[in-house]
């Protein structure tokens, strides 16, 4: 009789522990995702790919995997590095010297006189901030533009220019 109850108790414990572990495993997995999300939340979401990853989220994933340093985001500059260092408990380091220095925030403006309507800038925009179609004039929706400069290179007539935005303090007011 004793042996039956012992087996039952042990089996019970095993079941409970197994369930708990399964739950824990799931939660931990979600934690890893959480880390990516939290890193991503600190990135400026310019999607400029200057970090050599095709957007902020891929860069966040790479940081979470430990593949790359936290100092590869020029638009975020020192503030982002500091925020990531605090989040990940790492040392604050300088921006990777091989990258361009942080530029003042800006938006792309299309010189509509010169635009030939080739539509090559449309797929380049990571946030679909350019409206236009073949043979029609294009324009940048200023409010949505992140200032990533990715549309500048594809333009065959160099009609896209970066313009510094107003002080954010005024925009936020």
């Amino acid at each position, binding site marked *: 009789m004793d042996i039956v109850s012992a087996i039952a108790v042990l089996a019970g414990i095993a079941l409970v522990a197994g369930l708990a572990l399964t739950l824990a495993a799931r939660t931990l997995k979600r934690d890893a995702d959480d880390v990516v999300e939290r890193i*991503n939340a600190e990135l400026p*979401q310019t999607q400029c790919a200057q970090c050599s990853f095709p957007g*902020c*989220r891929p860069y966040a994933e790479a940081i979470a995997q430990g593949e790359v340093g936290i100092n590869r985001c020029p638009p975020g500059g020192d503030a982002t590095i500091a925020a990531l260092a605090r989040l990940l408990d790492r040392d604050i380091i300088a921006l990777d010297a091989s990258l361009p220095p942080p530029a003042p925030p800006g938006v792309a403006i299309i010189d509509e006189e010169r635009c030939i309507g080739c539509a090559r800038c449309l797929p380049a925009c*990571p946030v*679909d901030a350019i409206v236009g179609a073949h043979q029609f004039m294009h324009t940048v929706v200023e409010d*949505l533009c*992140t200032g990533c400069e990715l549309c500048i290179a594809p333009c065959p007539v160099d009609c896209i220019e970066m313009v510094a935005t107003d002080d954010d*303090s005024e925009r*936020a007011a």
Partner: protein
Amino acid sequence: MTSAPTENLHRLPGGLRLPGFKAQSATGEIRDVPIPKTLVLPVRQHAGSAAQPIVSVGDRVMRGQPIARAEGDFSTGVHASSSGTVVAIESRPIPGREAVEAACIIIETDGRDELWDALAPIANPLAATPDALLEAIGKAGIVGLGGAAFPTLAKLRHAVDAGVDTLILNGVECEPYISCDDALMRNQPVEILFGTRIMLTALGLRQCAIGIESDKPEAWAAFTEAASIEGDDRVQLVAIPTVYPSGGEDQLVYLLTGREVPSGGFPSDVGALVHNVGTAAAVADLALTGTPLISRIVTVTGEGITKPGNYRVRLGTPIADVAAFAGGYTEHAKRLIMGGPMTGVALTDDALPVTKACNCLIATGPAVRTSFEPERPCIRCGECARICPVRLQPQQLLRAHRYGAGDTLDGLGLIDCIECGCCDLVCPSHIPLTQSFRDAKLARRIDVYERERAERARERFERRQEREQTRADAQAAETKRLKQGANPDAIAEILARKRGAPDGDDD
């Protein structure tokens, strides 16, 4: 009209008894500043969105004629404060904390001061419908005259929607130096009571308290006397202890009703509506004569002014003209402040115009602030927390702001700071706390704005990724289908067609 016993009042947490410095200006007399040569009327003299000019350069305008119309619900119009010709509409600096520029309508006055003939008094305002009264108040460009210049119509509408039960008239004027409300209460208590009754009608309310600070016995006496002419059972006079900042909107609501305005909310959230006594007088003026808001009483005071006192100034009058009429500056004049010494802003130029928000101009001598002692470290004495009238912990806020924990500031109640300046006064280490909190509020606003933008960019980027993924998947499936199902001849044919086609996409 009755007066309530003071012991029924609720007690303000914190606050300070400040020296008044009011005697020099509070003579009880209000003098009219003459029409200036040039009027500079900014389209943004109120909280909310700027008005839109509706006159053009060269137009002749009359006193009281609308020259800019309200833009949206949270805005109000601007009226010419004397007759003359519009000579320019251009961007000029306007007085205020942000030191920004705004479009200003410049009128060269002709000295004739002709009245716009379309102005008409409201017939029988105490029997008019609330809608008609609200419309008239909105058209008249009336804003709160206590200094914040909140459009009165927006406030009344909001109060109607929120189901307010108590109207409170603010005659507390607790900040040192300022005495324009005191002068108004002494001189025009009948008008204030009449305006109050109109507002009660417009709101359909049965309860009103007029709060008057206890250091204004003349104003109290004037009201008691006026009650025989324009008294009303719905209106009660209440003496408010002289403690700064009892005249803050939320503070006054608490003192009188014991209701605490929630964080980030308005008095209407607790059923109260607060108007300055000057606003009530402006409403009465509108009802009796049809005059829109084209002038206000300004306290001109300080050691740097020859004849301190209260002056009725047409809106748009350059401050230099006001100072000149007040006898000019004395040799003590070192700085110019708009508003009071606690919450006012230093002005850089006396060419700036008097606006609807300008309740006081102080030309200070060196005596106002004798020491500019250097800041020392916080010693955690807790004085600032003890006197804070909104029960914040200024020392914690400062720490969070300075040492990079901006995200904890919301939890510490940063937005509830009313910037009264009490903590600055009591800080033994001379830390500029209030200014830090103003900076922190701006930094928070920018941060929130940037985060919203980033969030939007992230969403759009992810949608786009998803879309491209779907497209790539569809293409892969199509290729696979072709490879599996089609006969080699068909593939060769397609390839041949492709090769024959002109290069490039579509062009």
